[in-house]
């Protein structure tokens, strides 16, 4: 629960600016980026995601390190399940 998942912002959702589409190892889901509202955030930026919320902006190198560490801790599969499990940004709203 304490380990964050790194993702790359693909786009900020236009009509709901607190949501952004992120990509994690090829999987795209919307996450909430409201906690980073004080930072200029755009496509190509990397963030650490925690229970559906982007918590910090990080560098690309930092994101790669974090993913590698999740793999080494054996938590990468669980992390991908979590990303795939986020349903709140999906269409049927």
């Amino acid at each position, binding site marked *: 629960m*304490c380990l964050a998942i790194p993702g790359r912002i693909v786009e900020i959702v236009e009509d709901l600016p607190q949501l952004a589409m992120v990509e994690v190892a090829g999987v795209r889901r919307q996450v909430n980026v409201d906690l980073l509202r004080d930072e200029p955030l755009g496509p190509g930026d990397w963030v650490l995601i925690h229970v559906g919320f982007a918590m910090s902006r990080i560098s690309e190198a930092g994101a790669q*390190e974090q993913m590698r560490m999740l793999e080494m801790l054996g938590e990468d599969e669980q992390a991908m399940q979590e990303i795939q499990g986020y349903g709140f940004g999906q269409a049927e709203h």
Partner: protein
Amino acid sequence: MRYVDEFRDPKLIRQAAAEIRRLARPDRHYRVMEVCGGHTHAIYRFGLEGLLPGNLELIHGPGCPVCVLPMGRTDDGLAIAELPGVIFTAFGDVMRVPGTKGSPLEHKARGAEIRMVYSPLDALKLAQAHPDRHVVFFAIGFETTAPSTALTLLRARQLGVANFSVFCNHVTIIPAIRAILDSPGMRLDAFVGPGHVSTVIGCRPYEFIAEDFGKPIVVSGFEPLDILQSLVMILRQLADGRAEVENQYARVVPWEGNLPALRALEEVFELRPYFEWRGLGFISQSALKLRDAFAEWDAERRFTVPGIRVTDPKAAQCGEVLKGVLKPPQCKLFGRECTPERPVGALMVSSEGACAAYYHYVHRAAAAASLER
């Protein structure tokens, strides 16, 4: 060491380990607590204890949310889950936490409407999709997860979702550290500070550790090199006779924390007068509850919960392990009655729990080695 070669930079790891051995005076014993369960997991996974001199002891701290939650709170949550019309939601870790009459997963198997979610926003969405039911989210975690619950509640209010509420079990790390420092017989020399909690609260709240108790604390990242570098920084402080808050994880942790997250916490939550922690007992002002303005979304006010104090199974010594009095394998149930597959105690549930981490990386490796012999 076993894992050194798979590290990103084995040379830097060896250098840091050598520096630790150089700094650790042979005539003294060092006790350093890593507060965060994520660090505990990494320390066992990477076999870091094997890189440290024998007189540098790592003590596992209280930073594993499901580990410190007393069983009575799980029972309270499950009492709500069994009410007609309720859909009860929780994170995956919570699903396996033992209650008096079994875990949420076992209650689900017996027919309770319990669903696992990965985000509190998914619990809120479930409420919107089922207007005829009431969706309760079992909120748990330190300051890392509390802002997401706060934003979800703000969203629920904004959207006017009336069939959603939160059973709040959020705790705060500072009072727990203070309780440990205040406990009689406390023999810690320093702390490895939590990484992701600190992205929210920043480094300033730790200042009392240095100023009032004269102990160093270094906020640390989770990679092996991060943890070893943090230990180097701690040993340097101890060697110089300094006690300061230092930030090894500055690439992620801002000194002032995350202001929008802190504002959301302030708006939605207030401190409970006291809260019970497994192993640490009752700690004043150590947990969050919803403010009156959010009473409508507070499961504890909407539903009657038993609120009974439940003691852990007698044989399980979770509390002693949490206090650092016992190492995981010294518990009578460890690896026999209590395993990650069938946890009796909460420390065996989460990968951040000291028992589960020890079991996965030390106990199994030792068992495999003895088979090979």
